[in-house]
């Protein structure tokens, strides 16, 4: 974790205009990603993980959404406010995204080959034949058997795991500096999950890329990431290196998440403790700490004030809590 960060996000705010008012899906989120490392982005459903990833690639659907403020720097270059045409040239080449839903992420009416060749030709200036050869090679790399035949198949002829591998191959095709992997395995069955995840980690190392791995599975984070960001309700609750995060979680929410993780030696069917209560509605947020309602350590101040991350901006471990563990 030395040198300049590849990606540097500062005070990112993403808002959506809905019928019932403006929703702040991401609220002043800051973090860095350094070359060659994997940063985990964890949190319950709806906490803004996907939106954060989309914001980095400049893919927030507008309308209804927009980046309201903040800064996103990729290799020192400011992305917020960059014209769409410029931003577009970075997508797929400098940064790539792997999506949550492999079943629908590929265009059903084109062969996977033509979808891959398209990218390779656009960015690498390859001829059709060269691009095809490169695509076959990539498919082999992500573990697709008989890639020379598979390349001419349509997405519906592939299983979910295969499709996700194709998207991964597409993401790798132009050696991006950064990959945002948005729950790449959630939609897959358990055995495939492990395989695909392993593949991603191996390729991340082989291609020497930085990666943001979005997941709500802390187990996955423990296996693959060097650092992690825990998000709650659009805000960063805690960020830390993996070892201290798991050994000594400081935010009560992180602690709660860790407790609900099955441990080695624990009975498989034993009930795991779950965090009581519900995530507040983004349209109707409390004035104070957003986790207060579900928190055992809550006091009057928590209801009044919104806690900010403590410590220096670049300190390795920060928490947004008045009463950290």
């Amino acid at each position, binding site marked *: 974790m030395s040198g300049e960060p590849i990606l540097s996000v500062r005070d990112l705010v993403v808002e959506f205009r809905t019928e019932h008012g403006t929703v702040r899906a991401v609220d002043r989120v800051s973090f860095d990603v350094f070359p060659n490392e994997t940063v985990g982005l964890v949190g319950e459903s709806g906490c803004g993980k996907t939106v954060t990833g989309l914001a980095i690639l400049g893919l927030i659907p507008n309308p209804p959404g927009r980046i309201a403020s903040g800064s996103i720097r990729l290799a020192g270059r400011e992305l917020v406010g960059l014209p769409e045409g410029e931003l577009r040239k970075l997508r797929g080449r400098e940064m790539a995204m792997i999506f949550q839903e492999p079943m629908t*992420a590929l265009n059903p009416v084109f062969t996977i080959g033509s979808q891959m060749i398209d990218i390779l030709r656009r960015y690498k200036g390859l001829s059709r034949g060269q691009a095809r050869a490169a695509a076959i090679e990539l498919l082999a790399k992500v573990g697709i058997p008989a890639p020379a035949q598979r390349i001419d198949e349509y997405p519906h002829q592939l299983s979910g795991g295969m499709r996700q591998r194709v998207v991964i191959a597409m993401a790798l095709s132009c050696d991006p500096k950064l990959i945002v992997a948005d729950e790449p395995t959630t939609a897959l069955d358990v055995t495939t999950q492990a395989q695909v995840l392993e593949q991603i980690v191996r390729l991340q190392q082989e291609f020497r890329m930085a990666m943001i791995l979005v997941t709500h599975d802390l187990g996955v984070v423990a296996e693959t990431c060097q650092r992690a960001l825990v998000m709650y309700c659009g805000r960063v609750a805690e960020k830390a290196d993996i070892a201290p995060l798991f050994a000594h979680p400081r935010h009560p929410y992180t602690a709660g998440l860790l407790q609900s993780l099955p441990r080695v030696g624990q009975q498989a069917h034993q009930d795991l403790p779950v965090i009581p209560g519900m995530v507040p509605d983004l349209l109707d947020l409390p004035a104070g700490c957003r986790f207060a309602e579900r928190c055992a350590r809550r006091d009057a101040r928590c209801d009044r004030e919104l806690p900010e991350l403590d410590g220096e901006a670049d300190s390795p471990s920060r928490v947004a809590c008045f009463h950290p563990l």
Partner: protein
Amino acid sequence: MEVLQYSLRRLASGIPLLLGVTFISFLLMVYFGPDQTYQLLGKNPTAEQIAEIRAQLGYDQPFLVRYADYLREVATLDFGNSNSTGELVTDLLGRTIPVSLMLILPGFVLGNLLALLLALLAAHYRSRWPDKGIMAFSVTGMSISYLIVIIAFQVIFSSSSGLGWFPVRGWNVHSFAEYLEYVTVPTLATVFVALGYNTRFYRSVIVEELNRDHVRTARAFGVPPAKLLYRNVLKNCLIPIITRVVFTIPLIVISGALLVETYFGIPGVGKVTFDAITTGDQPVLKAVVGLTAVLFVLAQLLTDILYRAVDPRVSLS
């Protein structure tokens, strides 16, 4: 081979539709249609004369026999002669259908192509002012009656109180220049009306596709927006587009031109059909309705084959 087999099966499965269309039309237009007996007779006919004419027209046969006769006529394409003009029905249709096609085709093609173009533009700028402008135009177009458009365009382009550029009515076509003279105003009217409906339909199809995940993937890999539309999205939208276009064809062959033909006095199949309905000219009616039904079955087959050509998920089975 597979396609041939499939086609035969599909055609066979079109038989219930064919029977249904011919049956209902036969019931309405022929069985309950106008009785021609007295039109064909002189003054003060005798009972024998009446009976003779009725036998000649087939009125004395039981319903099912008449219907079966009709089906045989459809199968052999032998409908006899028109009651009103005495012309062979197949000749009559062979003469009038090309006129209708020439009349309606330019408007049909332009109306769809332009609409698709506008729809792509609107979808590209969705929720912004070009979209709003195009959709406002579309709703306005849809709110004006076809008949009003025809009348207005005739007044504006053809009448002496307007520009007077084109013939007011008729169809006196012997050369391409004359064709253009006669076809322009009906085409403009058709395109104007079709644009409203088509643009709206195409836009909604395209926008729905734009909201799909694979479009986001394409954007995440830097596909330029214009290319996204014409390459990635358009192909996905082809199924509803093909359906709409292909199923309009049987209708425009038979009745799409009815209003224009009647209004401009153009001797196409629409006008012939309409006249046949009003006079109860059964041989013509039978031919037209049978033809429509056959065209529909063929259109169904055509769409199925086209679906498979554009969408790999569709299989012929």
